[in-house]
């Protein structure tokens, strides 16, 4: 298996990453230690004005989190990626990424001058750097997904961060249903109560995968997804 991988890398804590995940490939993220969080953006690599749409993803599937069998929808009624494997069970869609202000308030100020590459990087700035490489900027920031993190909503609407969601070895695999620009930031979840800035490394693996079959579980999980896949596959006929 390892030699069949297109890519096999480790994303260290605090690091950013981007990749054009082509249709026919899948991205697997593995938490090497407990307590991981990967904030992630998804855009159509061929036409990045089309991007992940949090409300459309949640509304289509009547969900407020992501797991195996779910699709990540763009604003154009198409499926960017679908989740074909998940040993974690819950990925947060509601809480966004850290920014410089939040990171400094929570963990203290760091500078490159003092800390060199151990400075505390934040999700928003990481995203802006990576998006900038594609000519995109702050107006192009979609809502991020936080892989490996769990936040529930109680009956009064309060957000409750759940510790211990991602164990060491927890993995999630995303199959690209179109050519997707994926941007990752390995930075803490903004509601993680830990006072220590210590995002663990996350393994990134990309491999070739077969296209969704007629009875694919992501396609068949809801009638809405059947239509979302039709809207997407027509682009690649």
């Amino acid at each position, binding site marked *: 298996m390892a030699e069949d991988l297109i890519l096999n890398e480790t994303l260290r804590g605090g690091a950013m990453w981007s990749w054009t995940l082509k249709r026919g490939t899948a991205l697997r993220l593995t938490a090497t230690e407990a307590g991981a969080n990967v904030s992630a953006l998804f855009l159509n690599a061929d036409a990045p*004005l089309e991007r992940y*749409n*949090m*409300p*459309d993803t*949640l*509304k*289509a599937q*009547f*969900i*407020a*989190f992501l797991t195996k069998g779910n699709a990540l*929808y763009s*604003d*154009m*009624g*198409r499926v960017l990626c679908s989740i074909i494997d998940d040993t974690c069970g*819950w990925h947060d869609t*509601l*809480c*966004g990424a850290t*920014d410089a*202000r939040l990171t400094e308030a929570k963990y203290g100020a760091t500078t490159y001058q003092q800390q060199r590459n151990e400075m505390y990087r934040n999700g928003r700035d990481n995203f802006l750097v990576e998006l900038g490489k594609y000519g995109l*900027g*702050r*107006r*192009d*920031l979609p*809502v991020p997904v936080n892989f490996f993190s769990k936040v*529930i*909503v*109680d*009956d*009064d*609407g*309060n*957000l409750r961060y759940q510790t211990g969601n991602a164990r060491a070895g927890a993995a999630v695999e995303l199959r690209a249903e179109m050519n997707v620009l994926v941007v990752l930031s390995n930075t803490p979840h*903004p*509601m993680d109560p830990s006072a220590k800035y210590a995002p663990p490394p996350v393994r990134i693996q990309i491999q070739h995968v077969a296209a969704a079959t007629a009875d694919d579980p992501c396609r068949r999980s809801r009638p*809405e997804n059947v*239509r*979302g896949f*039709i*809207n997407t596959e027509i682009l690649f006929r």
Partner: protein
Amino acid sequence: MPTLVYTESALQSRDAVHDEILPAGKGWLHPIKAGQHFRILDLEGNQAVDTLFYNAADPADRYDGINTIRAQGNIFLTTGTRLISSEGNVLLTITADTCGRHDTLGGACSAESNTVRYALEKRYMHSCRDSFLLQIAQMAHSRESLTKRDLASNINFFMNVPVTPKGELTFADGVSAPGKYVEMRAEMDVLCLISNCPQLNNPCNAYNPTPIRLLIWDPPAAG
């Protein structure tokens, strides 16, 4: 159903500097100046008012639903909610609310999402995103012109979209009614973009989009 808290405003419509009825299916793009109060009134009940705000001095700094709900630790908007921008600034503060809660997660309808949610042949139907796009296209001569890039996830005033502790998104019975309103004070000069939702496929508005009333008051005179 949790108890909802209602807060009324002392402002009188006769004192408003702007008072307009916006029919269902229409868009609205309007400046609101720092210190002004802005009221959206649900004339016939359970009408979805899809709303975005922009920092008028820097429209890339825009209403950010995620920052807003995280700052208050709660997904519903009501009196006391500070509407936070993508850069972490306070755009407006909700000062009165006779409805009790407003949705931050449901976003706007669009021709494309209608094909997914309801049926492929629903593409032709009028939608909020189309109203947003027409409004911003018509302002395109201005220096601050907005484009589709700027259409972030919006507020749905008067809509009730709870999430269960199991993570299910539900479209619950409406909590609004004829005459309910929400009022907010601008903390900086903002642009407000509204689509008065034309959705005909969703029971949340009883399949019947209706007009809203939009009022603006100047800040009280100094002294």
